[in-house]
């Protein structure tokens, strides 16, 4: 007997189990792995609301101010009456002005002012300065894989028990100084909060959200295999559930052909001739900008399970991802030259947690004379390859496969550390091999 995979049922089952462990379990912590677009934010909001409704005062720890503001907005959207406290820093412009419109959200730089709010939300950095006599009964730690172990150490005394949610495939936290001295220690302060937590509490319940609602059927298998080899997930939609079509036919140019390839298959590789270039390779930058320009010019329309009626592919549904800031700046200026000013162009770090219909990615290794650990970091490529609902177009110079093969494999090995999978080198090869099937040569 074969069972048909029902994504909704699988996701509901996982969510129910998580909420049960969180609300009624006895363990001090619950860990949830969430692959890209698997509904992490929805889960966090739901867990927060249910905990609040059950009368448990709750603190929420997120990693950046943008994440905190986003959570506050989502909570208020779901339950406008819920008294939410936004604990913020004493810098200028400490929070999103949109929060001022929400009547039940109280903002303060002092935790004392927010006592009595059902939910208090802040960044890990701000929470670290808070002192309490009585710890919170419950906490939710969001983006826990991007939180460093020492940041958790600073706030863990504030709560009795917590739900830790995050995506293990995204960029790891890092330290700006060497920390080899502590490698192999369970509480290595430069490691991820979840690694430390699980090393000391191996019996905590661990869950996984099994379905990506963002990634289309064309993308989930590749992203899952390449970046989550031991914790696979599926797409919430099937082949054909989403379509991308263009009103204006192809003019036969490379950009148009790669757009059509990506619309058809979910992936496109626009390949420029092999050449060593500086990071802001003008040709590659122009290619990225041209693809974006054509995406907008060709009257794209997307259908999906959300809206059977085609919705237009507008500038706010397209994003460009790069590895470096100067590349993003170069693409922005090239786009401005083509009259496009309202498409998001950002680095992988800043695109974490965001979602678009189509993404155009300047491959981190394009044109490089050498690969570096930075460029091979799995999380970087994973973020760039998993922001889209319909299609991802990668712009790259030929020769990256050889570059990877010529990369010295002389990494040091620290005894006692858990080997992190996948390896960036392997993941890069896997993605390139897949992209090679959707290759279009650059002819402007």
């Amino acid at each position, binding site marked *: 007997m074969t069972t048909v995979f029902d994504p909704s049922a699988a996701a509901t089952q996982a969510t129910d189990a998580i909420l049960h462990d969180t609300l009624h379990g006895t363990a001090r912590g619950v860990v949830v792995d969430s692959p890209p677009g698997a509904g992490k934010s929805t889960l966090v909001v739901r867990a927060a609301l249910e905990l609040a409704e059950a009368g448990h005062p709750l603190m929420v720890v997120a990693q950046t101010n943008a994440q905190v503001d986003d959570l506050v907005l989502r909570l208020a959207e779901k339950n406008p009456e819920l008294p939410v406290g936004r604990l913020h820093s004493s810098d200028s412009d400490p929070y999103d002005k949109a929060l001022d419109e929400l009547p039940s959200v109280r903002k303060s730089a002092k935790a004392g002012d927010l006592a009595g709010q059902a939910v208090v939300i802040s960044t890990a950095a701000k929470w670290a300065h808070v002192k309490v006599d009585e710890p919170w009964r419950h906490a939710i730690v969001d983006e826990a894989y991007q939180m460093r172990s020492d940041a958790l150490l600073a706030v863990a005394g504030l709560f009795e028990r917590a739900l830790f949610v995050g995506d293990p495939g995204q960029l790891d936290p890092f330290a700006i100084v060497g920390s080899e001295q502590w490698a192999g*220690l369970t509480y290595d*302060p430069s490691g991820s909060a979840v690694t430390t937590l699980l090393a000391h509490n191996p019996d905590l319940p661990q869950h996984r959200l099994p379905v990506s609602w963002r990634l289309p059927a064309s993308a989930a298998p590749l992203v899952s295999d390449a970046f989550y080899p031991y914790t696979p997930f599926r797409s919430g939609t099937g082949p054909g559930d989403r379509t991308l079509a263009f009103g204006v036919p192809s003019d036969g140019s490379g950009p148009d052909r790669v757009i059509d390839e990506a619309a058809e298959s979910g992936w496109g590789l626009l390949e420029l001739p092999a050449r060593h270039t500086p990071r802001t390779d003008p040709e590659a930058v122009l290619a990225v900008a041209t693809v974006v320009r054509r995406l907008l010019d060709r009257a794209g329309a997307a259908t999906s399970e959300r809206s059977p009626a085609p919705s237009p592919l507008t500038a706010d549904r397209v994003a460009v991802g790069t590895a470096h800031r100067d590349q993003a700046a170069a693409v922005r200026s090239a786009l401005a030259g083509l009259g496009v000013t309202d498409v998001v162009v950002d680095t992988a770090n800043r695109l974490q947690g965001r979602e678009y219909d189509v993404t155009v990615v300047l491959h981190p290794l394009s044109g490089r004379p050498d690969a570096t650990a930075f460029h091979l970091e799995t999380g970087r490529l994973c973020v760039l390859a998993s922001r889209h609902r319909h299609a991802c177009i990668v712009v790259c110079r030929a020769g990256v496969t050889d570059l990877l093969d010529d990369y010295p494999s002389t990494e040091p090995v620290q005894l006692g550390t858990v080997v992190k999978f996948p390896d960036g080198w392997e993941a890069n090869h896997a993605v390139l091999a897949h992209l090679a099937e959707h290759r279009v040569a650059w002819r402007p």
Partner: protein
Amino acid sequence: MSLISTLARLEAVSTGRAQPAATVRHRHLGDRPLVFVPLITAGEAGAPLGALVGTDRDAPRLLAVPQPRDRDLRFAFLAELADVVLPYVDSYAEAVEAAERTETDPETGKRVKVEVDLCADAPQLIVPSRAGIDLVRLLGRSTRFRRTAEQDPEAPYPAPPRVPLLGRWLTHFGERSRVPGSSLLLAMTDVLGRHWVTGQSTLEDQHLGALLAWIDPPQGVTGAEAALRAELERDAQGQLTCPPAGPATDPAFDNKLLAPAIERYDRARTALAAAEDGLEADDRLGALSAAEREIRDLVLSRTRPTWDAVWRGLDLLRELPEGARVEERWTRDRWSFTGHRDRVLAGEPPQPRRDDAVTAANKLATREREQARLEAQEALDDPLVMAGRRLSGEAFAGEVTDVVMAYSEGKRPSPRPLVTVRTDDRPHLGERTKVYRSLGGKPQSAEFVADEEDGAYVVLRILDKMGRGKEPEPGSVPEKGDRVCFTLFEHEQRGGAKLPDPEETPWTHGGPPGELTLEAADPVTEEDVL
């Protein structure tokens, strides 16, 4: 690597001489550093073979272990080393000045200022290379848990007095050297490499002789030629004319010179032990002394060139003027020294083998803060470093072309003048990006308002350091025609959050580490090599 240092490296190739990587000296150099040039025995975990050590470049103290596998001889070496290092360290422990420190009052939990002693100066250890720093740590680790006969009359192989104390100090030096910008323990190759860029790779720069050859080549020879000679030239006996800076020795030295000498020493010792009468013993003692002297000469022959090289490096570094903020960082080193002095005096146990969770997190936080401080201070002290930050868009310099007075809104308007700067730099400025300039050594902040003519003009709003009045204090606002340099990075580092005390380590990190017990010494076995 910044493009500026890449260019310098290529220019060094082309000119045959190292190029400046700094225009001021970014590390503190004391008046009386203790130079330590150690050698170890190959294949053993840091078993010392010998060393030159001292503060007088003309009179180094030679220490040698004629049979590195002999425990007594090794202890004798360590005791001798302690006799040099500890009096040197102690000589800085006495002179103190009064200073203030913020502490948490244990009763009220409030932060209060207390007056404490701060050592007026601190000792400074200089080793030839990074491997020398590792050895300092290793020697510290191997000796700090040893027990002397006085501490433990039952100890099977009691260490000579003061050796465990030596271990605690070496450990402190080694640990402090991990803090960016610290100068208690320096590796000469690192410090030279910070101030000069050579025409070879940074890997090859690890060779002190080759590095110096680039910086200060002999008359009539290019740096490249001199460096190659330092690296590879061998004499008729097949020995390197410029021995490696250690602590590892050249295998050819081990096999051709050292091994036969140690064998002769062993034979002489066996013969002495077998002497049957006083006369014979006298003769054989003479032979033993001769064999020992031979090894001492060998050790001297391999360490003396490095010793001289380290002092030459110090000479070169002293020619550079000290950076303005180096003194401030040295004061932190003095705090660190004073703190350890106090812990030793208070009878605290030696540093544990492994940091607990809280200590590790605190150290990491300190080092990250010091790294950021170092980067900011070096840029502010040195136009060449600032040039690198300008190139990467983290700073910009230019001329003030316009100043328009403006005021903040509110009941008591404060000055918020708009300053336009003409610049050729390309800073990464975004909406309301904060920027800083140094005003009388203190940072003044401004925010980005707009740019004009494709970034050639940057309009900033000055935010602070203009006094309390409605009108800015004289000199606090740049004037038209002024050259200014603003940075996107902060000049001063904020302290991080206070972590829990170790006994309050949360459950996520394994809970409290438990009672601090005195860590046992390494079990002593027949198999020990150190």
